């Protein structure tokens, strides 16, 4: 056999670099806008931190959503989980610093249970993940609205440090988000579970033939996803000083978390992508928000533009893929 080494056929793949390109483009747009508007006061480190700080709920949620999407599933229940966990946080704490730890434990348990339920319904009952998590979302929202219809309980000042405390000029919560992202990256890159997530998302049958317990991997990804949403809810309660049953839905965290994951280069069909892309997606979204603010866009117009941008962003990737759509 001819053993002449073939030249490495590494095609340049636009999709693998798209999130970086988009990130640079949105930074450039932001800077250009500021210079044109002559509002250079926005070009400071403090402002940069402020921009990032606005996206922490979304960022934490999106880290979890990345796991769900990588494993070729999806989670539409995150917004309800965020609402529920924010309410549970503030109700359990109810201004009492001693209840901080029990509240956090209770919320994490709630997240784990929801994720487990999602995962079991998807794997064992073989319900389409979109429907399973939509149904779960309705159930959570219903239970929550049954008991609460307004802000309930309150978060003690000690716990508000989570949202408002800073190291120098950097908020704790921002550090927390990046540490969480780092952990997620580490798990995906170096652990057996992380490797299995990519394998199951890439080709479930191949993974099964290779002896991977695919159901457990899917369930695990969903537990992580719901846990992240629960943590995002804790953060939101700390920032708002109380929780209300609509705050998750109001933030459209389900759709936005999916959108930033996709903008970050993780394919909806699963098996390809990663955490840092998602973080780039989160930053792109905060920059777009800031651009609207600098440009003084009306709140309702902003909502309209957001909807269009989300669809456009997904289209940007999807139009390239040859997979059929659902």
């Amino acid at each position, binding site marked *: *056999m001819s053993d002449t080494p073939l030249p490495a056929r*590494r095609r340049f793949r636009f999709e693998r670099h798209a999130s970086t390109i988009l990130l640079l483009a949105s930074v450039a747009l932001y800077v250009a806008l500021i210079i044109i508007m002559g509002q250079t006061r926005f070009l400071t480190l403090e402002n940069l931190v402020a921009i990032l700080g606005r996206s922490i709920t979304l960022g934490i949620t999106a880290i979890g959503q990345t796991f769900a999407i990588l494993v070729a599933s999806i989670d539409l229940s995150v917004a309800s989980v965020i609402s529920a966990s924010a309410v549970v946080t503030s109700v359990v704490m109810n201004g009492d610093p001693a209840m901080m730890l029990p509240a956090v434990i209770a919320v994490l348990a709630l997240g784990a249970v929801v994720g487990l339920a999602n995962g079991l319904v998807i794997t064992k009952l073989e319900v389409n993940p979109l429907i399973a998590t939509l149904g779960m979302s309705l159930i959570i929202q219903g239970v929550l609205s049954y008991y609460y219809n307004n802000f309930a309980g309150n978060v003690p000042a000690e716990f508000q440090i989570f949202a408002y405390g800073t190291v120098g000029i950097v908020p704790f919560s921002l550090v927390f988000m990046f540490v969480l992202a780092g952990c997620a990256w580490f798990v995906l890159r170096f652990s057996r579970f992380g490797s299995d997530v990519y394998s199951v998302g*890439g080709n479930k049958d191949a993974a099964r033939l290779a*002896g991977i317990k695919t159901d457990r991997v899917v369930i695990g990804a969903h537990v992580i996803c719901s846990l992240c949403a629960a943590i995002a809810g804790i953060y939101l309660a700390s920032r708002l000083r109380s929780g209300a049953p609509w705050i998750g839905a109001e933030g459209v965290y389900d759709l936005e978390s999916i959108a930033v994951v996709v903008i970050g280069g993780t394919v909806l069909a699963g098996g390809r992508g990663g955490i840092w892309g998602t973080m780039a997606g989160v930053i792109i979204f905060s920059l777009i928000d800031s651009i609207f603010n600098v440009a003084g866009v009306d709140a309702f117009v902003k909502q309209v533009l957001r909807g269009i941008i989300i669809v456009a962003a997904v289209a940007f990737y999807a139009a390239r893929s040859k997979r059929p759509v659902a």
Partner: protein
Amino acid sequence: MSDVPTIEMRGITKSFPAVKALRGVSFTCSKGEVHALCGENGAGKSTLIKILSGVYRPDSGEVLIDGVEQHFRHPQEALLAGISVIYQEFSLLPERTVAQNLFLGREPMKNGLIDNRAMVAETRRVLGLFGVRHRIEPETLVADLDVASQQMVEIAKAISLNAKVIVMDEPTAALNEAECEVLFSLVDQLRAAGTAIVYITHRMREVTRLANRVTVIRDGEVTASFDHVPAPDVIVRAMVGRDISEYYPEPATPGEIGSVVLSVSGGGNAALRDINLELRSGEIVGFAGLQGAGRTPLAMALFGAAPFTSGTMMLDGEEVRLTSPRDAIRAGIGMLPGDRKAQALFLMQSVRDNGMLTARSFASAVGGDGANRFTDIAGMNALLDQMKVRAPSYDQEMRFLSGGNQQKAIVARWLALRPKVLIFIEPTRGIDVDAKASIYHLMRDLARAGTAVMMVSSDLPEILGASDRVIVMREGRIAGEFGRSASEAELMLAATGETGVAA
């Protein structure tokens, strides 16, 4: 050979809804031997292997490994028992590296984390066994490899498991001659090292070259078993079950072959180069070649699904530019795709709706039955009767039919439109022997009625048996043209582009 066979399958029976799969099949394979498992497409070879590897559970019968009865419930249990399978469909993950694929589900761990360095080193060692170390880097993404290299990775994956039993399901489908030789010598090495090898193929050349024993299955039953390698025609007769002469219909007489219906000159696109060909009415032209040689892309180009980007195409003497299947159908070209389930069947719709879909697609959207001369229920019923589609009712959902009946219903879809050119891709894949013969006769009847028939197939006996003329493709080009009296060896040589290799 030891007394206890490494694997022993006794009286395996398995049925799927509407599909007879296996009936009382027994099969053994011992240490240090290559046992060839032969059979036509759809005979039940793959089902048997999937039972051995724990993908399916048998309805009855037992599987013994080293004399101990096993009940695999998950492929992992079979893997742990030392059974490794190289599947026909690739089970690689395109977005992961070669090393990650090789160690899928059993990554080496160090301190609770994946040991990437060990993984890469071991991958390099295994690839070295093939002499493909220079061509495949452990950290390349599988998506960036060509088809043959992917097949090599697939084989390397099975071998790196150090399994007791290796099952190879038509491993040479995508390999050229030189690569086949590498594989064969590897099989020899594994046999010498004491591995039990089950080698599935329908290529007699490989049986002769490799096997110690041969078992033939047909329609889910063992029809012959040999402790030696018999003459190829003995095996073929056992595979086909009757004389070739009545299996395939008579070829076209010179008088039946008419004028050129479709011609292409200088046709090319991303997968094809310099295609020149003519299809005549009344003639069946077989297209042979290795996987990835460009046969399916050619069919898709003629059908407008992946159009030519250069060259000209003439239909009935007029130049046509077909850029979608709709254009092609309107111009009088029909196609039966190779992967029926993915590309042709509407499993939840009725048999009749499946048959009528194309006709309906070209009728008025708001029209009902009878909207044009093709959307005629009685006409479709008559066609389905004529095709002898066996179904309790034509209102039955398509998913309840057997492969052969499904294929016939799809043929009816095209017959309703009376196309000038009809393209069959792998027309008998996954179809039982009786239905196969009727598909061949159907193709012949169509040709006799004046249709130009193009048949793409990977089954050389089928190509030679059913065609009037054979075109062999290689690397996106037409590599040769043969009459039906050509031998399999001649076709293989043209398909692989190698010379001087004895067949």
